[in-house]
């Protein structure tokens, strides 16, 4: 049984903002299918009442005091910017609707 189709790979690549070549799509469809085929062995385990582990450590939530420190030097904040104007980062225009 094939677990992963080419459409799955394309849809997932779209979510991850990757554009794949034809060769990559073919190879990744095969690889992901094999990986998930192996992962399907987990289905044999009864985890009905098992609490999931998200963290390898159990702690009281660390919290910091609400004390502001001055922002970074603006030149240092922008030093890595591929493109800037004034003190703003510049990216090519956004075409779709706004997020919030």
């Amino acid at each position, binding site marked *: 049984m094939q677990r992963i189709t080419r459409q799955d790979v394309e849809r997932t690549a779209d979510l*991850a903002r990757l554009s794949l070549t034809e060769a990559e799509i073919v190879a990744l469809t095969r690889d992901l299918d094999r990986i998930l085929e192996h992962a399907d062995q*987990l289905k044999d385990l009864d985890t009905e009442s098992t609490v*999931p582990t998200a963290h390898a450590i159990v702690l009281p939530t660390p919290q910091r005091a609400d004390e502001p420190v001055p922002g970074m030097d603006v030149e240092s904040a922008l030093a890595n910017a591929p493109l800037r104007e004034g003190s703003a980062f510049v990216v090519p225009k956004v075409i779709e609707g706004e997020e919030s």
Partner: protein
Amino acid sequence: MDSLEAQSAGLAAAEVSSVELVDAALARIEAADATLNAVVGVRGDAARAEAAAADARRSAGDRRSPLDGVPLLLKDNMVQQGEPTTCSSRILEGFVSPYDSTVVTRLREAGAIVLGRSNMDEFAMGSSTEHSVHGPAHNPWDTGRSCGGSSGGSAAAVSSGMLPFALGSDTGGSIRQPASFCGVTGLKPTYGRVSRFGLVAFASSLDQIGPIARTARECAWILDAIAGHDAKDSTSIPEPAPRVSDALDGDVSGLTIGMPREYFEEDGADPEVVSCVRAAISELERGGAKLIEVDLPHTPFVVSTYYLVATAEASSNLARYDGARYGRRAEGVSDVDEMYRRSRSEGFGDEVKRRILLGTYVLSAGYFDAYYRKAQQVRTLVRADFERAFAQCDVIAGPTYPEVAFELGSKQDDPINMYLSDVYTVSANLAGLPAISIPCGLVRDLPVGLQLQGRAMDEATLLRVADGFQGRTDHHDQRPPGHLGQAAR
């Protein structure tokens, strides 16, 4: 004088200066790195200046730690202010960090000198240091073979005697497996023991920074310098880290060593590797340790569990590399969506894309419960396995990796097979436990690693056993053929 212990003693006795050590390290890198490709960047002038300051400080009587004045390499996924960090990725081309990682701050406080950055698999994804924009690193024992990964550059540099120690990061074995391949000692501390602040994340719930050096004692010194609570990391252990170097008494008598049945069933593992490891464990028994068999029944499931958890986290952690604020932006893009797609497709290598895709898939609607949540539940079962085992024993022993260093290129086409070989190392990450790989002999002239896993927070016992073993053996003193430091010995 290629070990940390030797260099530290030399500095303490004023037989050598820190500037001389830095210059010697630079010369060795110069001589050997064309072959090994273990180092991706050096900061010679800055390091020399810091070494001179360290020399002045020590001669004024202020010796901060055993690391004071000793040069090291950072794996290229730990940031240092004003220095590049590439994670061996094209997407971080040109990136210079505006801030220091906590380990860099702590190393500086200990007086150690960051000489440069070591090669790695891109974003720490891999076990061979072949997936690197800087090209593959090579194993000093056989340059046609892999030095392991993803902290392969760190292990190769220490093994070849370029530097006495280096830091690595370990998400599923990335310190221990290259240490095993290169015949050096590598420690992955308990999750939360060393701050992750400034470590470029691969899989946040699994990542830990740790030392690679020649001996367990040296690793203890390094851990003493970098461990401890950090308020900048919400997953940092809040208690102060005990000084583990104080725990090393060379004595393993009275300790119980657990040998998981599942690690010695030998299916898929190189039988010579397994018998080498068995022999090593017998040496601990001769030292007075008690050996028992333990069960880790979920061992067959750990690799799948690990890859589902790690890639899911990675897919989210690597979303920030988008070409907007730093790193490489694809040229000639006309809208923001094209910027994302092209910058990421051009910037990430195949292995990273494969893992981002897998991780994105297992988190996506309709698959989350079947894969990601299921893996988190199995993670709970894996933890429980270790809790039961550690009720019976102090340390769990077995191979670090099912084979010795493989040939470069031999696993490129078979990622799944490569993943399956992580079976012994990923559990410690899933369970958050400390684990160490120490050299325990040679098979076909290549090093074999003995892995010891310990109770959470109990690096002391782990290191005590490793140190006890090294006190009774000399596998850690073996050097690769043509080793640069051999002339000096």
